C-alpha cells in the first residue's frame, strides 16, 4: 500500500497464537515473501524492509511485511477463513511522541507556547492532515459567533438565531470559542493555529442565549435547520445533566437517526459533571443518545479531565471518543479575541472538525459511515473505555498525490 503521513506502506500481520510457524509458512505461500529475520535484534532493520520481505516477531506471534496491495488483500482474505493461521492484517501506523508539557505559562497550555499550532490541534493530528474541510458544511449550534472577529470577518458564514429576541452575535464567548476550534482559520491574525477544519463552510446556529442557557426546542430547531441546509456535521457543545438510571431522549435519538439517514452526523459533549476521582457523572443529554457521538475531554498529558462525564449507563450513554478539552486556546469575542478555557465543550468541536476532514477525504463518508470512520481511527489510550471510548480522535493523513499534486489542498 502507498506510504502516507499516517502509514508506512507496510502491514502488520497477527498470527494465531501457538501456530506462528504455520502462520509464517502461510504468509510465504500467499505472498512469496522472504523472511528477512525472525529476531528483532538489529536497529534500523525495519526501516529498510524490502518489498516482499517480512520480519517475524516470534514472541508475540506477529509479522511485519512489505508487499503489494494485491498481496495484502490476499492476506486479508486468508485471515477470514475459519481456523486460519493468519488472524488479521492492518496497515502499519506511524507513531509520534505526543507532546507532554511540564511548565505551564499562566493562562495557556505549555504545549502552545511558541508552537505553530495549539496542543489540541497537534494532538488530533490536524496539523499533519492534508485536509482542511473544504467543501464540507459544518454547523456549530451554541451561543452564536462574534461575526466581526478578526479571524472570521472575511469569511462567508451562514448564520441564524433560534433564540427569541436574540441576534446571532455572540455576547457570551462560548460559541465563538467552539466555532474556532472546529473551523478556525489555518492562519490566525495572531498566535498559533487553533482550528481543525479551517476551510469548512461554517453554519452558526444560536441555540443558547447569551447567558449560555437554552432548551430542547431551540436546539432541535437548530438541528433541523442544519440538516435542511445539508450540513454534514453538527457540533453540540451543550447538554443537560443526566442522573444515573435516566434513559436517553427517544425524540433526540430518533432525530439523530433521521439526521444520519440524511447524511448528517451529530456530535455532542459528554458533560462536565464529574468530580474525579470521587465522583463520575453519567453522560449528559443529548450526548447519551446512541446515535449521537459523545465526546470526553482529555488534557495534554492524555489524562481524562477531572470533570469529564463517563459512560456509566447500560442503555445508551456511552462515550465514543475523546479529544483535547483542558486549557484549550481558541477565538473569543473582541476585544479579548482569544481565550483559553476547558470543558467537554472544547473537546466536541475537535471531533467535529476532524469529522469534516474525514468527510472531505471520502465522499462516501457521511452519516453513520462518517461516525464509524472517526471512531475506528481513534488512537487507543491506556484509559477505561467508559472514560475515553475508542480513544483520542485522529485526523486523516495526507491524501495520495496524483501526478505530483497533493489532492488535499
Amino acid at each position, binding site marked *: 500500500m502507498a506510504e502516507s503521513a499516517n502509514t508506512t506502506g507496510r502491514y502488520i500481520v497477527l498470527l494465531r497464537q501457538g501456530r506462528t510457524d504455520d502462520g509464517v509458512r502461510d504468509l510465504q505461500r500467499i505472498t512469496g515473501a522472504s523472511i528477512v529475520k525472525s529476531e528483532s535484534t538489529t536497529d534500523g532493520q525495519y526501516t529498510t524492509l524490502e518489498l516482499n520481505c517480512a520480519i517475524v516477531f516470534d514472541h508475540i506471534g506477529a509479522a511485519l511485511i512489505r508487499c503489494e496491495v494485491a498481496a495484502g488483500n490476499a492476506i486479508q482474505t486468508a485471515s477470514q477463513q475459519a481456523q486460519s493461521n493468519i488472524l488479521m492484517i492492518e496497515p502499519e501506523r506511524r507513531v509520534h511522541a505526543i507532546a507532554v508539557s511540564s511548565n505551564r505559562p499562566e493562562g495557556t497550555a505549555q504545549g502552545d507556547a511558541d508552537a505553530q499550532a495549539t496542543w489540541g490541534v497537534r494532538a488530533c493530528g490536524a496539523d499533519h492532515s492534508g485536509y482542511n474541510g473544504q467543501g464540507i458544511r459544518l454547523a456549530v449550534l451554541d451561543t452564536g459567533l462574534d461575526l466581526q472577529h478578526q479571524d472570521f470577518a472575511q469569511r462567508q458564514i451562514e448564520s441564524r438565531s433560534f433564540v427569541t429576541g436574540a441576534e446571532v452575535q455572540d455576547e457570551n464567548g462560548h460559541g465563538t470559542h467552539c466555532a474556532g476550534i472546529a473551523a478556525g482559520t489555518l492562519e490566525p491574525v495572531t498566535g498559533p493555529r487553533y482550528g481543525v477544519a479551517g476551510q469548512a463552510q461554517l453554519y452558526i446556529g444560536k441555540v443558547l442565549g447569551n447567558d449560555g442557557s437554552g432548551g430542547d*426546542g*431551540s436546539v*432541535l430547531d437548530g438541528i*433541523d435547520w442544519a440538516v435542511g441546509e445539508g450540513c454534514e456535521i453538527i457540533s453540540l457543545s451543550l447538554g443537560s445533566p443526566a442522573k444515573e438510571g435516566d434513559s436517553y431522549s427517544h425524540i433526540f435519538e430518533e432525530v439523530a437517526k433521521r439526521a444520519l439517514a440524511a447524511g448528517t452526523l451529530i456530535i455532542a459533549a459528554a458533560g*462536565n459533571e464529574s468530580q474525579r476521582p470521587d465522583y463520575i457523572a453519567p453522560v449528559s443529554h443529548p450526548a447519551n443518545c446512541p446515535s449521537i457521538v459523545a465526546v470526553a475531554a482529555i488534557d495534554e498529558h492524555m489524562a481524562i479531565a477531572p470533570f469529564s462525564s463517563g459512560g456509566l449507563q447500560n442503555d445508551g450513554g456511552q462515550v465514543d471518543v475523546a479529544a483535547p478539552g483542558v486549557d484549550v486556546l481558541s477565538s473569543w469575542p473582541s476585544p479579548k479575541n482569544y481565550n483559553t478555557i476547558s470543558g467537554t465543550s472544547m473537546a466536541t468541536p475537535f471531533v467535529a472538525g476532524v469529522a469534516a476532514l474525514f468527510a472531505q477525504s471520502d465522499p462516501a463518508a457521511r452519516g453513520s459511515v462518517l461516525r464509524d470512520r472517526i471512531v475506528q481511527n481513534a488512537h487507543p489510550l491506556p484509559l477505561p473505555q467508559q472514560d475515553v471510548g475508542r480513544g483520542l480522535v485522529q485526523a486523516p493523513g495526507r491524501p495520495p498525490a496524483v501526478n505530483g499534486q497533493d489532492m488535499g489542498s
Partner: protein
Amino acid sequence: MTRITLTVLVKETYRERFSVVVEDCRRQGMAVEREMTALGLFSGNIEAEKVTQLRAVEGVAAVEADRPMRNC
C-alpha cells in the same frame, strides 16, 4: 393552569401529513411555536393535564417535555 413546554415527534409514516398532525395537536390545545419539517417534529406548550391527549393524537410518535440546556 400550568403550561409545559414540549416537543412532539411525528411518526415516520406520517411525515407527509405533518401539517395535519400539527393541526390536530393545536385542536388539543397546544400552542405550536416551532415547526421543524426537515426532521418531522414541532414544539410549543400546552396545559400540563392535556399532555396525555397529545400522545393519543394520530401520527404522534413521542411527546417529551423540554429539558433546560447549558453550554458545557
